[in-house]
C-alpha cells in the first residue's frame, strides 16, 4: 500500500528523488565537528519562533492602549500563555546566540571562501532580516524600553541627508512613535519571519549546491563524505537535545534574564528611562554607534560594522586550508575580534561615562582595524608560512585539494 502511494506520488512529484538527493544520499563531510550543528539549530529556533509567535498573535492586541495589558493577559489568563510568551522571548535570544556561533564558526574555519560566498551573503541577509524582525518585535510589548528603543533607532534614519526627517515620519507613520508605529511594526513582525523562511530556503539551495564546508578547509574526496541521514540527523538531534536543555533552563528558571526591568513599565512618552539599552544582541553595534562623536558618522559606522562581514571572502587573501588552526596570525585576529566584541557589548550596556567612552572608542577602532588589516596580514601570513615550510598535514591537505580539483575538472570535461 505504502509503495503504491509513493509510486503514485512519484509519477507526479519527485518525492523519492528529493529525499534521496537531499537527505539519504546527500554527501556530508564526515569530519564535521559539533560547531556544524548550529545551522540546524538556527532552523529549529526559527520554527519555535514561528509557532509560538502565531499563538501569541491570537491573543495580542496591537493598540497602544491595549498592547501592554494584552501581554499581561497572555501571561496571566491565557492557558499556558506564560509558557508561550517566555518561549518566544527566550527564543529571540536563543536565535541570536545560535546565529552568532554559526557566524563565528564560519569566520574561524574560513567557510566563507570560494565557492561559498553566496552562502555567506545569504546568511548576512538573514542576519539583517533577523535583526529587523527582533527590532519590530521588541516594540510590541509596549513597555518603556520598547518605546524608547524604537524612538532612538527610528530617529537614526533622520541622519539621511536632505530626506532624513521625512523618512523618520514615514517609518513611524507619525511624528513620534505611536499607534501607527505599533500597528505597522506588528504587521511587519508577522511578515518578516516568512520572508526569513524563504531566504533560508535559498540559503539551503546554495548549501546543497556547494555542500558543507568542513574543518579541513578543502573539499573532501568522495569516500570521506557520508550521507546526511542517518549520520548527521543523529548528530544534529543529539545536539538539539543539549541545546534544548540549556534553552529550557533559561525558559523555566530565568525567563527574565534577557528582559530589561524597565520593559515591565508601560510606555510613557513623557518620561525617558534613566538610560536606554537595547537587547544584549544589539549591544556591540550600539556601542559602535555611540563611540563616534558625530551621529551621522556613528550611524555609518554601525551599518558598516554589520555590512563589512560581506567582503570577508575578498579581505581574506590567504589560501591556507584548515581554518584558523594553521594560521597563527589569523587565529590571533579572530580571538582579538571576539574579545573586542564582548567588550563592546559591555560598553554598550553601560551608561557612556568617563573611561567607558574611551574604551568604546578603542574597541571600535580595533573592530574596524582588524577588517582593514586582514588583506595584508592574510597575504603576508601565507607567504611567511610557505617560506617557513608548511606542516606536513597542511601540505597533505593542499595536495589532496589539488587532486580533487583535477578530478572535478576531468568530470566537467567529460560532461
Amino acid at each position, binding site marked *: 500500500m505504502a509503495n503504491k502511494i509513493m509510486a503514485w506520488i512519484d509519477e507526479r512529484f519527485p518525492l523519492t528523488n528529493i529525499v534521496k538527493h537531499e537527505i539519504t544520499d546527500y554527501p556530508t563531510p564526515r569530519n564535521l565537528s559539533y560547531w556544524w550543528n548550529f545551522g540546524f539549530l538556527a532552523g529549529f529556533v526559527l520554527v519555535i519562533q514561528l509557532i509560538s509567535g502565531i499563538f501569541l498573535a491570537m491573543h495580542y492586541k496591537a493598540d497602544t492602549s491595549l498592547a501592554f495589558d494584552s501581554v*499581561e493577559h497572555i501571561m496571566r489568563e491565557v492557558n499556558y500563555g506564560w509558557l508561550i510568551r517566555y518561549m518566544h522571548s527566550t527564543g529571540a535570544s536563543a536565535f541570536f546566540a545560535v546565529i552568532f556561533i554559526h557566524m563565528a564558526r564560519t569566520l574561524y574555519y574560513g567557510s566563507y571562501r570560494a565557492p561559498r560566498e553566496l552562502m555567506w551573503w545569504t546568511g548576512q541577509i538573514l542576519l539583517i532580516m533577523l535583526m529587523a524582525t527582533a527590532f519590530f518585535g521588541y516594540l510590541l510589548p509596549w513597555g518603556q524600553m520598547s518605546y524608547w528603543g524604537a524612538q532612538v533607532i527610528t530617529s537614526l534614519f533622520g541622519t539621511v541627508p536632505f530626506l532624513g526627517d521625512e523618512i523618520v515620519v514615514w517609518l513611524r507613520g507619525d511624528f513620534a512613535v505611536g499607534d501607527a508605529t505599533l500597528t505597522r511594526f506588528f504587521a511587519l513582525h508577522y511578515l518578516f519571519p516568512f520572508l526569513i523562511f524563504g531566504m533560508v530556503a535559498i540559503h539551503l539551495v546554495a548549501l546543497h549546491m556547494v555542500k558543507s564546508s568542513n574543518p579541513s578547509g578543502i573539499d573532501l574526496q568522495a569516500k570521506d563524505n557520508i550521507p546526511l541521514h542517518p549520520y548527521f540527523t543523529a548528530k544534529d*538531534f*543529539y545536539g538539539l537535545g543539549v541545546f534544548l536543555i540549556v534553552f529550557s533552563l533559561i525558559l*523555566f528558571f530565568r525567563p527574565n534574564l*534577557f528582559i530589561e526591568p524597565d520593559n515591565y513599565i508601560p510606555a510613557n512618552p513623557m518620561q525617558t528611562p534613566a538610560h536606554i539599552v537595547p537587547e*544584549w544582541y544589539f549591544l556591540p553595534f550600539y556601542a559602535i554607534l555611540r563611540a563616534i562623536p558625530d551621529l551621522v558618522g556613528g550611524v555609518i559606522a554601525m551599518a558598516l560594522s554589520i555590512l563589512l562581514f560581506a567582503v570577508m571572502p575578498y579581505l581574506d587573501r590567504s589560501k591556507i586550508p584548515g581554518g584558523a588552526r594553521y594560521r597563527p596570525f589569523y587565529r590571533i585576529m579572530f580571538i582579538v575580534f571576539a574579545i573586542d566584541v564582548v567588550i563592546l557589548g559591555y560598553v554598550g550596556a553601560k551608561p557612556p561615562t568617563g573611561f567607558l567612552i574611551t574604551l568604546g572608542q578603542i574597541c571600535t577602532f580595533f573592530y574596524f582595524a582588524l577588517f582593514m588589516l586582514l588583506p595584508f596580514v592574510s597575504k603576508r601570513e601565507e607567504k611567511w608560512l610557505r617560506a617557513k615550510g608548511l606542516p606536513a598535514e597542511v601540505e597533505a591537505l593542499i595536495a589532496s585539494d589539488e587532486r580533487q580539483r583535477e578530478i572535478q575538472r576531468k568530470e566537467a570535461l567529460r560532461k
Partner: protein
Amino acid sequence: MKQLLSLFIIYLFLASSSSFAASDNGHPLADIKLDRSQAALQRGANAVINSCMLCHQLKYIKYRNLLDIGFDQATVDAMRKDNPMSSLLPTGLDKKLVEDMFGIVPPDLALMAKARKGGPAYIYTLLTSYHEQADGRIENLLFPGIAMPDPTAHSVTEDAAAKKEIEAKILDIASFLEWTADPHAQERKTMGIYVIIYLVILTIMLYIVKKRVWARLD
C-alpha cells in the same frame, strides 16, 4: 573555538549581571530570603490590600486570583461582598486627590517586582531604607526624594521587637508582590524540573543513538 564559547558565556554573564547587582544609585539591595509559602503570601496579600492599596493599585489581580494562594472561597466572598469574582481588587486610589497630595499618581504595584532591578529585594530594601536625617526629615536612601512617606513607620520605630515585626511584614509584602508580578512562577519552576529531567533522558538516548549509528562507519 572553545575559548570563543567561554567568551560568549562571560558575555552573557556580564550582560545579565547588571540585573543582580546594586540598584541604579549604588545603594546595596538587602540580601533577603523570601518565604513563598501560601501562609506568607496570604499575610502579604492582607498587608497590601489593607495598607498599600489605600493609595496604590494592583492592576491585574482579581478576587478569583486570590484562590490561587490558598484563600478559601468564604474568605474571598467576605472580601468581595457584592463584587463579582472577576473584578479587580478595589483601591482607595483617588487619582486627583493623591496627585494633589504627593505630586504624582502612585505607580501600579502588580508588576513592581519585575519592573525594578532586584525585584522583591528592591521592594524590601526600599521599604526598610527610610532614615531620619540630622534635620529631622525622613529620607529614603534607596530612592532619595521619594514622594511616598514611610508607609510602615519602620524608620521611626524604636522598639527592636516591633521593628523586627515590621520587617517580617515587609518581607511578606515582597513575597506577595513577587507573586502578583508572575503568578505562574511556581507552576513554571515545577514544570521546568520535569521538562529538564525528560530532556536529559532524551538527550542521553539521542547520544546513544548517535554513537550506534556512527559505529557502523568503521
